[in-house]
Protein backbone atom coordinates (compact mmCIF):
# COMPACT_ATOMS: atom_id res chain seq x y z
CA UNK A 1 0.00 0.00 0.00
CA UNK A 2 1.25 3.42 -0.87
CA UNK A 3 1.57 6.16 1.69
CA UNK A 4 -1.12 8.81 1.89
CA UNK A 5 -2.14 11.85 3.88
CA UNK A 6 -4.97 11.28 6.27
CA UNK A 7 -7.62 13.72 7.45
CA UNK A 8 -10.42 13.09 9.90
CA UNK A 9 -12.88 15.98 9.74
CA UNK A 10 -15.79 16.20 12.14
CA UNK A 11 -18.36 17.88 9.91
CA UNK A 12 -19.64 17.51 6.37
CA UNK A 13 -18.58 21.03 5.55
CA UNK A 14 -15.05 20.39 6.72
CA UNK A 15 -14.95 17.14 4.74
CA UNK A 16 -16.10 18.78 1.52
CA UNK A 17 -13.59 21.60 2.02
CA UNK A 18 -10.81 19.05 2.45
CA UNK A 19 -11.81 17.15 -0.68
CA UNK A 20 -11.56 20.39 -2.60
CA UNK A 21 -8.34 21.60 -1.02
CA UNK A 22 -6.54 18.32 -1.50
CA UNK A 23 -7.79 18.04 -5.04
CA UNK A 24 -7.14 15.15 -7.41
CA UNK A 25 -5.97 11.99 -5.72
CA UNK A 26 -8.20 12.49 -2.70
CA UNK A 27 -10.77 9.89 -1.71
CA UNK A 28 -13.32 9.79 1.05
CA UNK A 29 -12.82 6.82 3.37
CA UNK A 30 -15.92 5.30 4.93
CA UNK A 31 -15.86 1.77 6.39
CA UNK A 32 -12.80 0.85 4.35
CA UNK A 33 -13.93 -2.65 3.46
CA UNK A 34 -13.79 -1.88 -0.25
CA UNK A 35 -11.39 1.06 -0.40
CA UNK A 36 -8.61 -0.41 1.73
CA UNK A 37 -8.70 -3.61 -0.29
CA UNK A 38 -8.45 -1.56 -3.50
CA UNK A 39 -5.57 0.45 -2.05
CA UNK A 40 -3.73 -2.76 -1.16
CA UNK A 41 -4.27 -4.17 -4.59
CA UNK A 42 -2.87 -0.99 -6.10
CA UNK A 43 -6.07 -0.53 -7.99
CA UNK A 44 -5.81 1.32 -11.24
CA UNK A 45 -9.01 3.03 -10.27
CA UNK A 46 -7.10 5.74 -8.43
CA UNK A 47 -3.43 5.44 -9.36
CA UNK A 48 -2.58 8.76 -7.83
CA UNK A 49 -4.28 8.29 -4.48
CA UNK A 50 -2.54 10.75 -2.21
CA UNK A 51 -5.00 11.70 0.52
CA UNK A 52 -7.82 10.13 2.42
CA UNK A 53 -10.62 12.02 4.07
CA UNK A 54 -12.05 9.80 6.76
CA UNK A 55 -15.77 10.13 7.35
CA UNK A 56 -15.74 8.14 10.57
CA UNK A 57 -15.89 11.10 12.93
CA UNK A 58 -18.73 12.93 11.24
CA UNK A 59 -21.64 12.38 13.61
CA UNK A 60 -24.24 13.88 11.26
CA UNK A 61 -23.53 11.06 8.81
CA UNK A 62 -24.80 8.36 11.12
CA UNK A 63 -28.15 7.06 12.15
CA UNK A 64 -31.58 5.92 11.06
CA UNK A 65 -34.64 8.09 11.68
CA UNK A 66 -38.21 7.47 10.72
CA UNK A 67 -41.61 9.04 11.10
CA UNK A 68 -44.81 8.49 9.15
CA UNK A 69 -44.86 12.15 8.17
CA UNK A 70 -41.20 12.68 7.25
CA UNK A 71 -40.41 9.21 6.09
CA UNK A 72 -37.06 7.51 6.37
CA UNK A 73 -33.64 9.10 6.71
CA UNK A 74 -30.52 6.98 6.70
CA UNK A 75 -27.17 8.68 7.24
CA UNK A 76 -24.66 7.51 4.66
CA UNK A 77 -22.19 6.65 7.39
CA UNK A 78 -24.55 4.16 9.04
CA UNK A 79 -23.02 0.72 9.15
CA UNK A 80 -24.59 -2.41 7.75
CA UNK A 81 -24.84 -3.80 11.28
CA UNK A 82 -26.70 -0.71 12.45
CA UNK A 83 -29.13 -1.03 9.55
CA UNK A 84 -29.63 -4.73 10.15
CA UNK A 85 -30.27 -4.15 13.84
CA UNK A 86 -32.67 -1.22 13.37
CA UNK A 87 -36.10 -2.05 14.75
CA UNK A 88 -37.69 0.61 12.53
CA UNK A 89 -36.22 -0.83 9.38
CA UNK A 90 -37.17 -4.34 10.43
CA UNK A 91 -40.76 -3.27 10.86
CA UNK A 92 -41.20 -1.07 7.83
CA UNK A 93 -38.36 -1.64 5.36
CA UNK A 94 -37.51 -5.34 5.59
CA UNK A 95 -35.75 -5.47 2.22
CA UNK A 96 -33.18 -2.96 3.47
CA UNK A 97 -32.49 -5.08 6.54
CA UNK A 98 -32.12 -8.12 4.33
CA UNK A 99 -29.74 -6.31 1.99
CA UNK A 100 -27.56 -4.91 4.76
CA UNK A 101 -27.71 -8.16 6.70
CA UNK A 102 -25.88 -10.24 4.11
CA UNK A 103 -22.94 -8.01 3.31
CA UNK A 104 -19.72 -9.95 3.96
CA UNK A 105 -19.52 -11.24 7.50
CA UNK A 106 -20.31 -9.85 10.94
CA UNK A 107 -16.96 -8.08 10.82
CA UNK A 108 -17.73 -6.54 7.44
CA UNK A 109 -21.15 -5.44 8.61
CA UNK A 110 -19.62 -3.69 11.60
CA UNK A 111 -17.31 -1.67 9.35
CA UNK A 112 -19.01 -1.19 6.00
CA UNK A 113 -21.39 1.74 5.61
CA UNK A 114 -24.39 2.11 3.36
CA UNK A 115 -22.79 5.15 1.74
CA UNK A 116 -19.67 3.17 0.98
CA UNK A 117 -21.68 0.27 -0.37
CA UNK A 118 -23.54 2.59 -2.76
CA UNK A 119 -20.66 4.86 -3.77
CA UNK A 120 -18.35 1.91 -4.49
CA UNK A 121 -20.96 1.39 -7.22
CA UNK A 122 -20.52 -2.33 -7.62
CA UNK A 123 -23.41 -3.71 -9.68
CA UNK A 124 -23.79 -6.31 -6.93
CA UNK A 125 -24.12 -3.86 -4.00
CA UNK A 126 -26.57 -5.54 -1.67
CA UNK A 127 -28.22 -2.41 -0.27
CA UNK A 128 -28.91 -0.90 -3.70
CA UNK A 129 -31.84 -3.02 -4.94
CA UNK A 130 -33.66 -2.63 -1.62
CA UNK A 131 -33.23 1.14 -1.60
CA UNK A 132 -34.28 1.28 -5.26
CA UNK A 133 -37.63 -0.39 -4.60
CA UNK A 134 -38.31 2.25 -1.95
CA UNK A 135 -37.43 4.86 -4.58
CA UNK A 136 -34.91 6.37 -2.20
CA UNK A 137 -33.39 9.76 -2.91
CA UNK A 138 -29.73 10.44 -2.38
CA UNK A 139 -28.83 13.72 -0.74
CA UNK A 140 -25.45 14.78 -1.94
CA UNK A 141 -23.33 17.48 -0.37
CA UNK A 142 -20.71 19.36 -2.31
CA UNK A 143 -18.97 22.71 -2.61
CA UNK A 144 -22.15 24.33 -3.88
CA UNK A 145 -24.39 22.90 -1.20
CA UNK A 146 -26.89 20.06 -1.23
CA UNK A 147 -28.61 18.39 -4.13
CA UNK A 148 -31.20 15.63 -4.29
CA UNK A 149 -30.91 12.87 -6.82
CA UNK A 150 -33.04 9.77 -7.17
CA UNK A 151 -30.77 6.89 -6.14
CA UNK A 152 -31.35 5.27 -9.52
CA UNK A 153 -29.54 8.19 -11.12
CA UNK A 154 -26.55 7.94 -8.80
CA UNK A 155 -25.14 4.82 -10.50
CA UNK A 156 -23.95 4.98 -14.05
CA UNK A 157 -21.27 2.35 -14.54
CA UNK A 158 -19.38 -0.20 -12.50
CA UNK A 159 -17.41 1.83 -9.97
CA UNK A 160 -18.76 5.11 -11.30
CA UNK A 161 -21.36 7.37 -9.73
CA UNK A 162 -22.90 10.72 -10.52
CA UNK A 163 -20.95 12.28 -7.66
CA UNK A 164 -18.13 14.67 -8.51
CA UNK A 165 -14.80 14.10 -6.75
CA UNK A 166 -15.68 16.89 -4.33
CA UNK A 167 -19.09 15.60 -3.41
CA UNK A 168 -20.17 13.24 -0.66
CA UNK A 169 -23.26 11.15 -0.24
CA UNK A 170 -24.84 12.59 2.88
CA UNK A 171 -28.04 10.68 3.41
CA UNK A 172 -30.79 8.61 1.88
CA UNK A 173 -34.43 9.51 2.12
CA UNK A 174 -37.53 7.49 1.39
CA UNK A 175 -41.23 8.02 1.93
CA UNK A 176 -43.08 5.98 4.51
CA UNK A 177 -44.52 2.98 2.70
CA UNK A 178 -48.32 2.94 2.73
CA UNK A 179 -50.19 0.31 4.73
CA UNK A 180 -50.31 -3.02 2.95
CA UNK A 181 -46.74 -2.78 1.72
CA UNK A 182 -44.31 -5.66 1.88
CA UNK A 183 -40.78 -5.96 0.56
CA UNK A 184 -38.01 -8.49 0.33
CA UNK A 185 -34.41 -8.82 -0.84
CA UNK A 186 -32.97 -12.16 -1.91
CA UNK A 187 -29.62 -12.87 -3.38
CA UNK A 188 -27.84 -15.87 -4.77
CA UNK A 189 -24.34 -16.71 -3.57
CA UNK A 190 -22.53 -20.05 -3.65
CA UNK A 191 -21.53 -19.71 0.00
CA UNK A 192 -24.11 -18.81 2.60
CA UNK A 193 -22.10 -15.77 3.70
CA UNK A 194 -18.79 -14.11 2.82
CA UNK A 195 -19.73 -13.79 -0.79
CA UNK A 196 -20.77 -11.37 -3.51
CA UNK A 197 -24.22 -11.53 -5.05
CA UNK A 198 -24.32 -13.46 -8.31
CA UNK A 199 -27.82 -12.03 -8.59
CA UNK A 200 -29.69 -9.85 -6.11
CA UNK A 201 -33.40 -9.13 -6.35
CA UNK A 202 -35.54 -6.76 -4.33
CA UNK A 203 -39.30 -6.55 -4.66
CA UNK A 204 -41.90 -4.27 -3.12
CA UNK A 205 -45.64 -4.73 -3.33
CA UNK A 206 -48.43 -2.59 -1.96
CA UNK A 207 -51.66 -4.56 -1.94
CA UNK A 208 -55.07 -2.97 -1.75
CA UNK A 209 -58.36 -4.61 -0.94
CA UNK A 210 -59.11 -7.73 -2.86
CA UNK A 211 -55.46 -8.54 -3.36
CA UNK A 212 -55.06 -5.80 -5.94
CA UNK A 213 -51.51 -4.68 -6.59
CA UNK A 214 -51.44 -0.92 -6.13
CA UNK A 215 -47.70 -0.55 -6.40
CA UNK A 216 -45.10 -3.01 -7.63
CA UNK A 217 -41.40 -2.38 -7.80
CA UNK A 218 -38.59 -4.73 -8.67
CA UNK A 219 -34.87 -3.99 -8.65
CA UNK A 220 -32.04 -6.21 -9.79
CA UNK A 221 -28.43 -6.38 -8.72
CA UNK A 222 -25.40 -7.87 -10.50
CA UNK A 223 -27.16 -8.32 -13.83
CA UNK A 224 -26.35 -5.00 -15.47
CA UNK A 225 -23.53 -2.44 -15.29
CA UNK A 226 -25.40 -0.95 -12.31
CA UNK A 227 -28.30 -1.93 -10.07
CA UNK A 228 -31.45 -1.48 -12.16
CA UNK A 229 -35.23 -1.45 -11.92
CA UNK A 230 -37.28 -3.85 -13.99
CA UNK A 231 -40.05 -1.54 -15.29
CA UNK A 232 -41.70 -4.01 -17.67
CA UNK A 233 -42.09 -6.59 -14.96
CA UNK A 234 -43.45 -3.89 -12.66
CA UNK A 235 -45.96 -2.80 -15.32
CA UNK A 236 -47.22 -6.37 -15.65
CA UNK A 237 -47.96 -6.45 -11.95
CA UNK A 238 -49.37 -2.99 -11.45
CA UNK A 239 -53.15 -2.86 -11.11
CA UNK A 240 -53.61 -6.61 -11.29
CA UNK A 241 -54.50 -9.27 -8.80
CA UNK A 242 -51.54 -10.72 -6.94
CA UNK A 243 -51.51 -14.35 -8.00
CA UNK A 244 -48.79 -16.97 -8.30
CA UNK A 245 -49.31 -17.05 -12.04
CA UNK A 246 -48.86 -13.31 -12.36
CA UNK A 247 -45.70 -13.43 -10.28
CA UNK A 248 -44.34 -16.09 -12.59
CA UNK A 249 -45.02 -13.96 -15.66
CA UNK A 250 -43.49 -10.90 -14.01
CA UNK A 251 -40.45 -12.91 -13.05
CA UNK A 252 -40.01 -14.03 -16.66
CA UNK A 253 -40.29 -10.41 -17.76
CA UNK A 254 -37.66 -9.35 -15.23
CA UNK A 255 -35.34 -12.04 -16.58
CA UNK A 256 -35.77 -10.51 -20.03
CA UNK A 257 -34.95 -7.05 -18.68
CA UNK A 258 -31.73 -8.19 -17.06
CA UNK A 259 -28.56 -7.58 -19.07
CA UNK A 260 -26.18 -9.99 -17.40
CA UNK A 261 -22.63 -10.73 -18.41
CA UNK A 262 -20.63 -13.91 -17.93
CA UNK A 263 -17.84 -13.72 -15.39
CA UNK A 264 -16.22 -15.91 -12.76
CA UNK A 265 -19.28 -15.74 -10.56
CA UNK A 266 -21.63 -17.08 -13.20
CA UNK A 267 -22.61 -17.17 -16.85
CA UNK A 268 -25.15 -14.81 -18.36
CA UNK A 269 -27.58 -17.70 -18.88
CA UNK A 270 -27.26 -18.75 -15.26
CA UNK A 271 -27.85 -15.22 -14.06
CA UNK A 272 -30.89 -14.75 -16.25
CA UNK A 273 -32.32 -18.00 -14.94
CA UNK A 274 -31.67 -16.87 -11.36
CA UNK A 275 -33.39 -13.54 -11.95
CA UNK A 276 -36.52 -15.41 -12.92
CA UNK A 277 -36.41 -17.84 -10.00
CA UNK A 278 -35.53 -15.25 -7.41
CA UNK A 279 -37.88 -12.54 -8.62
CA UNK A 280 -40.74 -14.98 -8.30
CA UNK A 281 -39.65 -15.97 -4.80
CA UNK A 282 -39.07 -12.40 -3.81
CA UNK A 283 -42.55 -11.36 -4.98
CA UNK A 284 -44.07 -14.18 -2.98
CA UNK A 285 -42.32 -13.04 0.19
CA UNK A 286 -43.18 -9.40 -0.43
CA UNK A 287 -46.83 -10.31 -1.00
CA UNK A 288 -46.93 -12.39 2.16
CA UNK A 289 -45.57 -9.46 4.11
CA UNK A 290 -47.94 -7.04 2.43
CA UNK A 291 -50.91 -9.23 3.31
CA UNK A 292 -49.83 -9.36 6.93
CA UNK A 293 -50.64 -5.61 6.90
CA UNK A 294 -50.35 -4.24 10.38
CA UNK A 295 -48.44 -7.26 11.63
CA UNK A 296 -44.81 -6.26 11.74
CA UNK A 297 -42.33 -8.37 9.90
CA UNK A 298 -40.96 -10.97 12.22
CA UNK A 299 -39.77 -13.89 10.12
Amino acid sequence: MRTVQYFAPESMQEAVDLLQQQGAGTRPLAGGTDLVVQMKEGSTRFPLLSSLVSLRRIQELRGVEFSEADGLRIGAGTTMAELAESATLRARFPAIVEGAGVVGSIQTMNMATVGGNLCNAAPSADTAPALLVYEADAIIVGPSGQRWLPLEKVFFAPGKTALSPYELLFELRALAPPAGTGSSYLRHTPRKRMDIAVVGVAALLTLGTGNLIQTARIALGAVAPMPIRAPQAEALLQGNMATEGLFRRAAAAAAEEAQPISDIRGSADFRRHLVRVMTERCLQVAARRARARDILWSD
Partner: protein
Amino acid sequence: MAKQLISLQVNGDTYEVAVEPHWTLLETVRDELRLTGSKEGCGTGDCGACTMMVGGRLITSCLMLAPEAEGSAVLTIEGLSRDGDLHPIQQAFIDSGGVQCGFCTPGMIMAAKALLDRNPSPTLAQVREGLEGNLCRCTGYTKIYEAVLAAAQRTS
Protein backbone atom coordinates in the same frame (compact mmCIF):
# COMPACT_ATOMS: atom_id res chain seq x y z
CA MET B 1 5.66 11.08 4.06
CA ALA B 2 5.78 12.15 7.67
CA LYS B 3 4.46 9.84 10.31
CA GLN B 4 1.69 11.04 12.54
CA LEU B 5 1.35 10.44 16.22
CA ILE B 6 -1.80 8.65 17.25
CA SER B 7 -3.04 7.42 20.57
CA LEU B 8 -4.34 3.86 20.71
CA GLN B 9 -6.08 2.20 23.63
CA VAL B 10 -5.31 -1.46 23.36
CA ASN B 11 -6.35 -3.97 26.01
CA GLY B 12 -6.75 -1.16 28.50
CA ASP B 13 -3.30 0.34 27.91
CA THR B 14 -2.73 3.62 26.11
CA TYR B 15 0.01 3.78 23.50
CA GLU B 16 1.30 6.81 21.67
CA VAL B 17 2.41 5.47 18.29
CA ALA B 18 3.92 7.17 15.28
CA VAL B 19 2.28 5.66 12.22
CA GLU B 20 2.10 6.21 8.54
CA PRO B 21 -1.61 6.81 7.95
CA HIS B 22 -1.91 3.93 5.52
CA TRP B 23 -0.74 1.39 8.08
CA THR B 24 -3.52 -0.88 9.12
CA LEU B 25 -4.49 -1.38 12.73
CA LEU B 26 -3.24 -4.96 12.37
CA GLU B 27 0.21 -3.90 11.19
CA THR B 28 0.44 -1.27 13.86
CA VAL B 29 -0.55 -3.58 16.70
CA ARG B 30 1.72 -6.35 15.46
CA ASP B 31 4.76 -4.40 14.31
CA GLU B 32 4.77 -1.35 16.59
CA LEU B 33 3.15 -2.64 19.78
CA ARG B 34 4.56 -6.12 19.14
CA LEU B 35 1.30 -7.77 20.10
CA THR B 36 1.55 -10.54 17.53
CA GLY B 37 -1.41 -12.69 18.59
CA SER B 38 -3.62 -11.24 15.85
CA LYS B 39 -2.66 -12.77 12.51
CA GLU B 40 -2.76 -11.79 8.87
CA GLY B 41 -4.19 -14.57 6.73
CA CYS B 42 -5.43 -12.69 3.69
CA GLY B 43 -5.15 -8.92 4.08
CA THR B 44 -8.54 -8.43 2.47
CA GLY B 45 -10.98 -9.07 5.30
CA ASP B 46 -11.96 -12.49 4.05
CA CYS B 47 -10.46 -14.88 6.62
CA GLY B 48 -10.94 -13.28 10.04
CA ALA B 49 -7.51 -14.18 11.45
CA CYS B 50 -6.93 -10.52 12.30
CA THR B 51 -10.23 -10.12 14.13
CA MET B 52 -10.21 -7.65 17.02
CA MET B 53 -12.92 -5.75 18.84
CA VAL B 54 -12.97 -2.00 18.35
CA GLY B 55 -15.46 -0.03 20.42
CA GLY B 56 -17.07 -3.33 21.38
CA ARG B 57 -17.62 -4.32 17.75
CA LEU B 58 -15.95 -7.17 15.94
CA ILE B 59 -13.84 -5.98 13.01
CA THR B 60 -11.14 -7.22 10.65
CA SER B 61 -8.13 -5.15 11.64
CA CYS B 62 -6.41 -5.72 8.28
CA LEU B 63 -8.98 -3.39 6.72
CA MET B 64 -8.98 -0.68 9.34
CA LEU B 65 -6.35 2.01 9.00
CA ALA B 66 -4.63 2.65 12.31
CA PRO B 67 -5.77 6.27 12.71
CA GLU B 68 -9.36 5.10 12.35
CA ALA B 69 -9.09 3.28 15.69
CA GLU B 70 -8.10 6.39 17.61
CA GLY B 71 -10.49 7.09 20.44
CA SER B 72 -11.98 3.59 20.52
CA ALA B 73 -11.10 0.80 22.92
CA VAL B 74 -9.29 -1.95 21.04
CA LEU B 75 -9.37 -5.50 22.39
CA THR B 76 -7.03 -8.15 21.03
CA ILE B 77 -6.46 -11.77 22.01
CA GLU B 78 -3.72 -10.60 24.40
CA GLY B 79 -6.35 -8.70 26.36
CA LEU B 80 -8.41 -11.76 27.15
CA SER B 81 -6.28 -13.41 29.81
CA ARG B 82 -4.60 -10.58 31.58
CA ASP B 83 -3.58 -12.07 34.89
CA GLY B 84 -2.41 -15.42 33.70
CA ASP B 85 -5.81 -17.06 33.98
CA LEU B 86 -7.29 -18.24 30.75
CA HIS B 87 -10.63 -16.82 29.69
CA PRO B 88 -13.31 -19.57 29.79
CA ILE B 89 -13.52 -19.47 25.98
CA GLN B 90 -9.77 -20.05 25.72
CA GLN B 91 -9.95 -22.97 28.14
CA ALA B 92 -12.90 -24.44 26.24
CA PHE B 93 -11.00 -24.24 22.94
CA ILE B 94 -8.16 -26.26 24.48
CA ASP B 95 -10.36 -28.81 26.20
CA SER B 96 -12.68 -29.41 23.25
CA GLY B 97 -9.91 -29.79 20.70
CA GLY B 98 -10.92 -26.57 18.96
CA VAL B 99 -7.26 -25.69 18.46
CA GLN B 100 -5.16 -27.32 15.80
CA CYS B 101 -2.59 -25.23 13.93
CA GLY B 102 -3.62 -22.25 16.04
CA PHE B 103 -3.40 -19.61 13.33
CA CYS B 104 -7.11 -18.85 13.13
CA THR B 105 -7.53 -19.38 16.87
CA PRO B 106 -7.01 -15.82 18.19
CA GLY B 107 -9.47 -14.34 15.70
CA MET B 108 -11.90 -17.19 16.21
CA ILE B 109 -11.83 -16.70 19.97
CA MET B 110 -12.46 -12.97 19.54
CA ALA B 111 -15.49 -13.78 17.36
CA ALA B 112 -16.68 -16.26 19.98
CA LYS B 113 -16.29 -13.61 22.67
CA ALA B 114 -18.30 -11.05 20.68
CA LEU B 115 -21.00 -13.67 20.18
CA LEU B 116 -21.19 -14.68 23.85
CA ASP B 117 -21.09 -11.03 24.96
CA ARG B 118 -24.37 -10.40 23.19
CA ASN B 119 -25.85 -13.89 23.44
CA PRO B 120 -24.62 -15.88 26.46
CA SER B 121 -26.45 -19.06 25.53
CA PRO B 122 -26.43 -19.42 21.76
CA THR B 123 -27.85 -22.32 19.78
CA LEU B 124 -25.62 -24.24 17.37
CA ALA B 125 -27.10 -22.22 14.50
CA GLN B 126 -26.26 -18.97 16.29
CA VAL B 127 -22.72 -20.18 16.93
CA ARG B 128 -22.32 -20.92 13.23
CA GLU B 129 -23.62 -17.46 12.42
CA GLY B 130 -21.39 -15.78 15.00
CA LEU B 131 -18.25 -17.35 13.54
CA GLU B 132 -19.16 -16.85 9.87
CA GLY B 133 -16.35 -14.36 9.26
CA ASN B 134 -13.60 -16.59 10.58
CA LEU B 135 -12.14 -19.33 8.40
CA CYS B 136 -10.51 -22.39 9.90
CA ARG B 137 -8.91 -24.91 7.60
CA CYS B 138 -7.88 -27.54 10.15
CA THR B 139 -10.85 -28.49 12.27
CA GLY B 140 -13.85 -28.55 9.97
CA TYR B 141 -15.28 -26.31 12.74
CA THR B 142 -16.97 -29.17 14.61
CA LYS B 143 -14.80 -28.94 17.71
CA ILE B 144 -14.90 -25.15 17.56
CA TYR B 145 -18.70 -25.28 17.71
CA GLU B 146 -18.38 -27.63 20.67
CA ALA B 147 -15.87 -25.31 22.36
CA VAL B 148 -18.10 -22.25 22.05
CA LEU B 149 -21.15 -24.14 23.28
CA ALA B 150 -19.11 -25.49 26.20
CA ALA B 151 -17.79 -22.01 27.02
CA ALA B 152 -21.36 -20.70 27.04
CA GLN B 153 -22.31 -23.42 29.50
CA ARG B 154 -19.38 -22.62 31.74
CA THR B 155 -19.94 -18.90 31.85
CA SER B 156 -23.70 -18.98 32.30
